[in-house]
């Protein structure tokens, strides 16, 4: 119930932030090129073999992005909280923390398309085994966003996360997750 309420709240914040600016005529490119900070919330789901023993849920996170001298590229840092239950008693909580490189596709539309790739680490907690450890993480993603004024942007982000375990002693499987989220982020005057 709480998760549903939060989903609805985030959705309405996004809509109310962007409606007045939906038909803005001037290019927002210069605003978009500023450092950005934001948050996202949405469904997170295990995929491939990981979906055999974990169930989808809702997750959310925060991120920060900074410009590079080459305009279409940005670097970002991203973190989130994702908790997955199972049909049985196992549950896994992930706190990914990773850096990524974002590439703004050169498409001249009010809607912006970005591709992203990155890597970092993920804190993995597993119950009831009481395992808590940091593991390497790789990610790929895309984002579709549109400006909501000078200050804010609204986006739909789709990310694939791979928690790499096969290099571990006895590791035969990796963790595969797909995150979809509605995102609201702000252009900063730094």
């Amino acid at each position, binding site marked *: 119930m709480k998760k549903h309420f939060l989903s609805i709240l985030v959705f309405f914040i996004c809509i109310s932030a962007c409606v007045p600016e939906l038909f803005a005529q001037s290019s927002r490119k210069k605003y978009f090129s500023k450092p950005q900070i934001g948050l996202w919330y949405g469904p997170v789901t295990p995929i491939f073999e990981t979906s055999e023993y974990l169930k989808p849920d809702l997750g959310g996170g925060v991120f920060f992005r900074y410009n590079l001298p080459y305009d279409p590229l940005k670097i970002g840092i991203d973190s989130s909280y994702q908790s997955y239950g199972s049909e049985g008693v196992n549950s*896994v909580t992930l706190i990914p923390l990773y850096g990524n490189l974002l590439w703004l596709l050169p498409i001249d539309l009010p809607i912006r398309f970005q591709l992203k790739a990155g890597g970092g680490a993920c804190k993995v907690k597993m119950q009831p085994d009481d395992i808590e450890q940091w593991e390497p993480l790789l990610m790929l993603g895309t984002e579709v966003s549109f400006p909501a004024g000078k200050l804010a942007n609204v986006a739909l982000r789709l990310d694939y996360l791979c928690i790499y*375990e096969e290099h571990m002693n006895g590791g035969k499987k990796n963790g595969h997750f797909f995150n979809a989220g509605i995102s609201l982020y702000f252009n900063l005057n730094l």
Partner: protein
Amino acid sequence: MKVRRLYIFIFCLSLFSLSCGKKPVFTEMATSRLRIVLKGTLESEKGYMSPFVTPAANSTSVEDSDHANDSVDDIKGPSEDVYPTKLMLDIAEIRLGGKKISNYRQTFSIALSDSEPFFNGEGIELKTDDPGDGRYDTVEIFFRKMIFDNAKIYKSTGSGFVYEKDAEVIFKEKTVTGFDFNQLMVNSYWDSLRKESDQVIRVFPMVIPIIGGLNYNKENNETVLEIRLVFKNFIKKYEYDYYDSGIYKVCHYYAPSDWLRDVRAGESDIGRNLHGVAKALVKGQTGSITVSNPSLGYVVAIPADEDISDYFISKDGKLIRDDVKGDLPLPPNYPGAYISAVLDYYLKYEKYKNDWNTKRADLDSSSPAGLSDILDKYEYYWDVYESTVKGTGYGLKIPPYVGYGTSVTFNEMAVGSYKFYRFDAPAYGQLNTSFTSLNGGNVVTINAGANTGF
């Protein structure tokens, strides 16, 4: 080029530092190292099982009609009664030492036959997740329903009883014929003088001791936890009395034998009569041994540090209960606002008062252990009863290794020291009341691999 190599080195170093000494979580979740098998037999060894006995539903051994105060008292031996053919189990949850390892709902419909894995020693596998490393001394199974089919309802005509219909119950979201005796698997004293008068449910969960304990370690090979519940050749008929719209009815249903805690006329609670035991084995850390049995019967092994007296009672449970002088009668149930039923109730209530006074006088005239106060006497008799039926702790223990035959091979025994005993096959619906030592009572050490038998 050198810079690229440096990057690769740093990447490998960070991978190493993020992985050193850690467990692969996703591999762990996909792997099951603990296998739990559930059996419905006293025997643990496949190939060394006593055959299934299917007595007539109205035989003395099923109906207990040899005892004057048996549960089946209103209508004895009706021709419609049929011995059950099927056991239905609905399991909600399993825990190990109180820690949840499974909340998968699992239902089983098992024919009462030697060809069923549940009854032939093979066992049925329960779906569970792996527990964390550690020692566990009990396994708890939360039974949602336990049903035997062929339960029959009879209604009173005033001068006798007539068959009305088969009892029905919902199992696995479908209506089936049978009686869910799980709801009656409580251990209660109907007399409010006892603190145990509060009903205590014994099957939600049913706490089953793991004899020898389960030392679970993920570094080991597959660990097998075998759980046995004594159903085979241990099923009896009971009578459940109730009023339905002012009409007195009885239901004849089947449940585990009341050999330990005798269930008497008018009593509905049948708890603590389902006996369970569990034992743990780690593959590769087991030994085998062949034991000769002087005559056809059971061979059992228990850990050397256990006391064999925890594994049997000195005499049949109904005789133990006969010794209780403070065994006061049950008051009749109020039938509701139906005039003929209420008149019937007052008649029964007068009889109850008379019986109660007779029992009280019987208690008053006794002087156990030199006691003079009647409440002290009452307490004394019930305390003796409780200790005689092993009422403390987990109750009566069932041996972890049991085989039937003139020569029994225990193929997989956990490495350790054991004492071996034998006993003759008890009558249907009963367990043993004595053991005889084998191997001169000497402790036998079981090592991994084949061991020299005796």
